[in-house]
């Protein structure tokens, strides 16, 4: 074979090899392009996914909003049925209500012992018609009107129970604007 022919064949082979090489590179390039396209698609799918989630959340929010409105409507309905009571309280005895609430608070805070239990025991075992000498005495009457301190020496719980009731009733009768005399037939004595 002539050397010229060999050279031509070699040249052709080289060219084909170069062509093949170029094609492979082209394929490679396309594959890379495809890869980045796939990546783009992936990103788009993800963002779509996110949007769907957002929409879902929006729907949930709307649901909650609807429920809130519902419960407000229910509450509003209830309040409108209570309104007459609220109005009555507003215009009558708010002072009493708050005063009593404060007194309940004081009671819970200090939780005092209850002296009325002793008072009731002493009062229940009294003897009718005694201790009048005490209420008629100057000592008692001076103490009641002007005295600062009275010491009753001795042990006589029922005398005290009677005194407490005497004073309390006197005050209640005055508060009611009635005559204070003639109401006190409850002067008692208990031999302790």
């Amino acid at each position, binding site marked *: 074979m002539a050397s010229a022919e060999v050279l031509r064949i070699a040249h052709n082979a080289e060219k084909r090899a170069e062509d093949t090489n170029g094609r492979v590179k082209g394929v490679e390039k396309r594959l890379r392009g495809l890869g980045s396209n796939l990546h783009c698609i992936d990103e788009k799918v993800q963002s779509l996914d996110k949007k769907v989630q957002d929409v879902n959340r929006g729907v949930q929010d709307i649901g909650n909003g609807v429920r809130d409105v519902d419960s407000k409507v229910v509450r509003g309905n209830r309040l409108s049925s209570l309104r007459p009571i609220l109005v009555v309280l507003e215009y009558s005895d708010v002072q009493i209500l708050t005063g009593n609430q404060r007194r309940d608070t004081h009671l819970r805070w200090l939780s005092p012992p209850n002296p009325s239990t002793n008072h009731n025991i002493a009062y229940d075992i009294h*003897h009718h018609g005694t201790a009048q000498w005490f209420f008629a005495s100057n000592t008692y009457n001076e103490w009641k009107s002007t005295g600062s*301190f009275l010491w009753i020496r*001795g*042990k006589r719980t029922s005398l005290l129970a009677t005194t407490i009731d005497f*004073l309390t009733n006197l005050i209640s009768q005055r508060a009611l604007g009635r005559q204070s005399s003639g109401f006190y037939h409850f002067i008692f004595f208990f031999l302790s």
Partner: protein
Amino acid sequence: MALRNSGEAAVVYFYFDFRDTNKQHLRNLLHSLLVQLSAQSDPFCDILSNLYYAHDCGARKPSNRDMMECLKGMLSSPRQAPIYIIMDALDECSNASGIPSPREQVLKLVNELVNLDLPNLHICITSRPEFDIQAVFQFLTPRPVSLHDERGQKQDIANYISSVIHSDPWMSRWRDEDKKLVIETLSELADGM
């Protein structure tokens, strides 16, 4: 409500009781008097509310001194209606333990209250004349009532014994002179108690 707003007198009381440990200390007395006064008057209720708020809305309990000052604040407030504080059986407040003992603490309070010299404050206390009580009270009152010496008290005792003897189905059958002897003897032995 009428009583609270009318400026009428307030009556508060406390029974010392040796059988009940919640009724033997100054703290118990102050808790009880403050709550009773607060219940009987709106201005007093305001004063106790101030103490409550000053103790972090009830998160802390007030000391005895805080409560004594609060009580004095109520008693000295411009309200002029009479206030009666009545205590029974101070001798049942213990003086056995503690320095000062519960009884010494109460005696100190009574002394302070009487010395406020308030024209609308009237304090009445019944108690056996035990030494420590006598020592304080003799300076606070010119004329204590001694139940032993009161003719009315003796007559009350005789009347009571008589009514028991005459109403009891068994004793009422006694002869008149026996009844008389029992009434006289028991009245004498009771010695005003």
